[in-house]
C-alpha cells in the first residue's frame, strides 16, 4: 500500500501522542523509585518487617501500614465476595430478565460514587453505628470466645481497621458483581442443560455446572476487587483512625493503610529520609497494584471471551 505524505504525518502525530502513554508509565516508575532510593537502600527488607515509624528519630518501618492494608483488604474481600457473587448468581441464573436488568443497573450506580463520598458516608453513618452498636455487641458476644475474641478486644473509638474494611467491602461490591456476572453469563448453556437434564435442582446445577466453570473468572473478579481495595485512599483515610501504633490483633484498633499513610503524611514529610520513606510506600503500592491487576486480568481473560466493558 502506498503511504503518502499525509499518511506519514498522520501516523507520526498519532504515534507521538500514543507513545506518551508508555513514556508516562516509565516516568512514573523512574521518578518514584529515584525519590524512594535513599529509603530503599537504608532500610532494605527491614522496611517491610519493622513497625517503628519515627520521623523524629528518623527510623522508618512500614510494617504497621502493610498490616493495616492487609487486614482491611481481607475484611473487604471476606465481606464483599459472598454478597457480590451471590448477587451475581441470582442476577444471571434466577432473576427474570427485566428485573435482572434494573437491579444490575442499580448495583452499577454504586460504582459511580466517588470514593470521597464513601468516606463521608462512612465517617458520619458507619463510624457512629459501629461505635455505639455494632462493636460493643461484637465485643460482648464474641469477646469471651478464645482466640477469636482477641479480634474484638480493646477500647472502642469507632474509627478503626474494622470500619475501614467494611467501607472497602461496600466499595468493591459493584466491581465484583459486574465481573462475576459476565463470567457466569459466559458459561455455555450446554453445561447448564446437561445438569438439568439429569434432574438436578437449580442450585445443584449452579454448584455443579456453572460455578466450577466460572470459578477462575470469579477468582479473577475477587483479585480485581482486591486491587481496588489495596489502593483505595480517601474512603479509608476518613474512617481508619490514622495512628501508627504497634501491630495488635484487635480489629478495634485505629490503624493506617499504606494509601492513607501517604495521603496523610506526604504533604509534610520534611527531611529527605522521611520523604523518601513515604515515596517508598507509594512504590510498594505501585508494585502490588501492577502485580495484582495483571494477575486479575489474566484470570478473567481466560474465562470470559467478552471484552471487559467495565471501565474501572
Amino acid at each position, binding site marked *: 500500500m502506498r503511504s503518502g505524505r499525509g499518511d506519514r504525518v498522520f501516523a507520526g502525530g498519532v504515534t507521538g501522542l500514543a507513545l506518551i502513554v508508555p513514556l508516562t508509565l516509565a516516568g512514573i516508575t523512574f521518578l518514584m523509585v529515584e525519590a524512594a532510593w535513599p529509603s530503599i537502600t537504608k532500610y532494605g527488607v527491614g522496611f517491610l518487617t519493622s513497625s*517503628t*515509624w*519515627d*520521623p*523524629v*528519630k528518623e527510623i522508618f518501618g512500614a510494617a504497621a501500614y502493610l498490616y493495616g492494608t492487609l487486614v482491611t483488604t481481607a475484611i473487604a474481600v471476606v465481606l464483599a465476595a459472598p454478597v457480590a457473587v451471590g448477587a451475581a448468581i441470582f442476577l444471571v441464573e434466577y432473576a427474570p430478565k427485566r428485573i435482572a436488568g434494573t437491579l444490575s443497573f442499580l448495583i452499577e450506580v454504586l460504582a459511580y460514587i466517588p470514593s470521597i463520598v464513601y468516606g463521608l458516608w462512612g465517617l458520619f453513618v458507619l*463510624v*457512629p453505628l459501629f*461505635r455505639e452498636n455494632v462493636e460493643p455487641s461484637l465485643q460482648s458476644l464474641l469477646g469471651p470466645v478464645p482466640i477469636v475474641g482477641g479480634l474484638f478486644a480493646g*477500647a472502642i*473509638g*469507632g*474509627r478503626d481497621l474494622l470500619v475501614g474494611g467494611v467501607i472497602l467491602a461496600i466499595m468493591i461490591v459493584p466491581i465484583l458483581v459486574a465481573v462475576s456476572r459476565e463470567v457466569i453469563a459466559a458459561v455455555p448453556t450446554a453445561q447448564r442443560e446437561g445438569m438439568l437434564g439429569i434432574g438436578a435442582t437449580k442450585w445443584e446445577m449452579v454448584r455443579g455446572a456453572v460455578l466450577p466453570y466460572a470459578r477462575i473468572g470469579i477468582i479473577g473478579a475477587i483479585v480485581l476487587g482486591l486491587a481496588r481495595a489495596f489502593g483505595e485512599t480517601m474512603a479509608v483515610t476518613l474512617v481508619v*483512625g*490514622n*495512628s*501508627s*501504633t504497634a501491630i495488635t490483633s484487635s480489629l478495634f484498633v*485505629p490503624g493506617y493503610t499504606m494509601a492513607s499513610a501517604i495521603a*496523610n*503524611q506526604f*504533604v*509534610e*514529610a*520534611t*527531611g*529527605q529520609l522521611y*520523604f523518601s520513606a513515604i515515596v517508598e510506600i507509594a512504590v510498594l503500592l505501585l508494585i502490588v497494584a501492577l502485580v495484582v491487576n495483571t494477575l486479575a486480568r489474566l484470570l478473567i481473560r481466560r474465562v470470559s471471551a467478552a471484552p471487559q466493558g467495565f471501565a474501572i
Partner: protein
Amino acid sequence: MKFRLAASALAVATLIAACGGASTPGPSASANTCFPVKGQCPEEAQTLTASGATFPAVVYTKWIDEYYKSTGVQVNYQAIGSGGGIKAITEKTVDFAGSDAPMTDAQLAAVSTSILHIPTVMGAVVPTFNIPGVTKLNLTPDTLAGIYLGTIKTWNDPKLAADNPGVTFPSSNITPVFRSDSSGTTFAFTDYLAKVSPDFKSKVGAGTAVTFPSGVGGKGNDGVAGVVKSTPNSIGYVELIYAIQQKLGTAALRNASGKFVDPTLDAVSKAAVGVTYPDDLRVSITNSPNADAWPISTFTFLLTYKDVSDHAKALAMARYFWWGTHDGQAFTKDLGYAPLPADVLTKAEAKIHSMTSGGLPVLPSN
C-alpha cells in the same frame, strides 16, 4: 445606519466597562497608600499562595476575608499543618507558610535561601476533653504525660481523682487523641511535656510528628476537635478556639509555679513576659515560670524568604504581614488568640522591614 449606531454604542459601552475595570473593593489606590497599609496598592501582586498551620487558621481566614475587602488581594492560605507549611516553603511551592513550630537548624539548612520567622499571634494549646458527666477537669504535668504515655489508662485512675476532689469519673478507658499530621501544635504540646516529664522526653520526645504509644489520630486542629467531640471518654490537644467552637471542656493545668491555671488569653499573654528572644525569634515559651501563665502557650509564625525576587509579590507579602501584625491584632481576642506583646511586635516589624527584593528593601523605612 441603525446598525452602525448600535454597533458604536456597543463599542463605547464595552470600552467604558473595560476602563471601569473589574469591581475591586476598597478606596481607590494611590502610590502613597502602599505603606502604611491603608487600602489598595497598584504595584502589588493580587494573589498570594500560602499553606501551613491549622492552629491559627481561625484568625488567619478572618484576616484574609477582611484584607480582601480592604485591599482586593487574594491570600489563599490552605491549612494543612505546620509540617506541610515547612515542607512547602522548603520546596518553594508556596509564597509563604505558617507554622507554630519554629524551623529546626536542619530544616533551615535544607532551604537554599534565608528564611524569616515573623510571629503573628499567640495562642494556648489546651487539653480538651469529652467525658460524660464531667465539666471541670484539673490536670498536672504528671497526669497529662501519663495519659499520653498510656500509663494512666482509665478516667477513674486515683492520680486523676487526687487532683479533682468531688468529681465522679466514669471507669471507661481513656482515648487520647493526637495529630495524625505533622503539627506545630503537637510541637508545642510535646515540647511542654518533654520539659516537665523526663519519662515523656525519653519515650516519645518533642517534635512536630512524634509517635504516641496509643490513641486516635485527627487531621488538623479541627480534625482533633472533631474526633474528641464525637468520641466519648476522649481527650485531645487543640488551640483554645477550637475547643470553644465545639463547646468542649478545657482542662485547667498546674503550671510551673504550682497554680492550677485555666486557659485564658491573659494567662497566655503572661507566658510571654520576661522572655529573652533570640535574633531569629525562634523561641519556645512553654512551661513559663510566671505565676499566672498558661504552661502550653506558643507563638505562631509566618515563614517567608528574606529575599523575594518578584517585587510585586514581595510588596504584597510585606504589606499583608504588616497588616496582620497591626490591624489584624484587633481580631485576635474575639477569636481565642492573644495579641502580640509590644516588645515582640517591635521585633516583628524589624523582621518585615528586613525583607528585600533583589537586594533592595521592600518597604520604605518609616
